[in-house]
């Protein structure tokens, strides 16, 4: 299963990239699982970031949201617009 992962703001800066295509092992099925898997595969900033938010296909999602093949999964810090 492959997904498009996007990073924004301070997280993008810390990881040095705005996104990547990721090929996931079968055991990774949720957003929380994806975060843990990425953090243990070189993106350790994902583990230490405070109050990290997530969106699946451009809708806010929690850690238990299901990840499917072809999804666009974004991780970012709390928003600060307005």
């Amino acid at each position, binding site marked *: 299963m492959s997904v498009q992962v996007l990073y924004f703001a301070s997280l993008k800066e810390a990881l040095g990239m705005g996104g990547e295509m990721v090929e996931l092992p079968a055991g990774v099925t949720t957003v929380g699982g994806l975060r843990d898997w990425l953090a243990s595969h070189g993106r350790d900033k994902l583990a230490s970031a405070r*109050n990290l938010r997530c969106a699946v296909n451009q*809708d806010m999602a929690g850690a238990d949201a299901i990840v499917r093949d072809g999804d666009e999964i974004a991780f970012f*810090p*709390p*928003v*600060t*617009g*307005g």
Partner: protein
Amino acid sequence: MTVRVQEADFDVGAELTALRAGDARVGALASFVGLVRDVNHGVGISEMTLEHYPGMTEKALAAIVDEAKARWDIYGALVIHRVGPLKPCDQIVLVAVTSAHRGEAFAACEFIMDYLKTRAPFWKREVTPEGARWVDARESDDSAATRWEK
């Protein structure tokens, strides 16, 4: 219902006039304009850059406006949010709502702004004398949004 995300500045007068043009049902127009300040947490700000998540931003703003429309009897709503480099005194955001009476217009305008602050994917990066920093989210913004929960 209009949502725009743009680098360009906007003309508040022209936008408000257009929002209510020709609609004789409108008895109230409430608006809010957010501006760049030259100080944040006691530190001087010389520049600011607004980053966003293209695609999700527009979707999130449209969903917030739809929710306002479901909660209050409003006729028109407009959200314009700028992105890119900004300086102190620049306009950042315009929210405007029309309705028959002021109560609905005020409430819907404030609701849209409160939800925008906590749900629309924008991030501010400010330049201070000590260098650039990402702005931290404020707890007061979370509590402002929470009070609208039913």
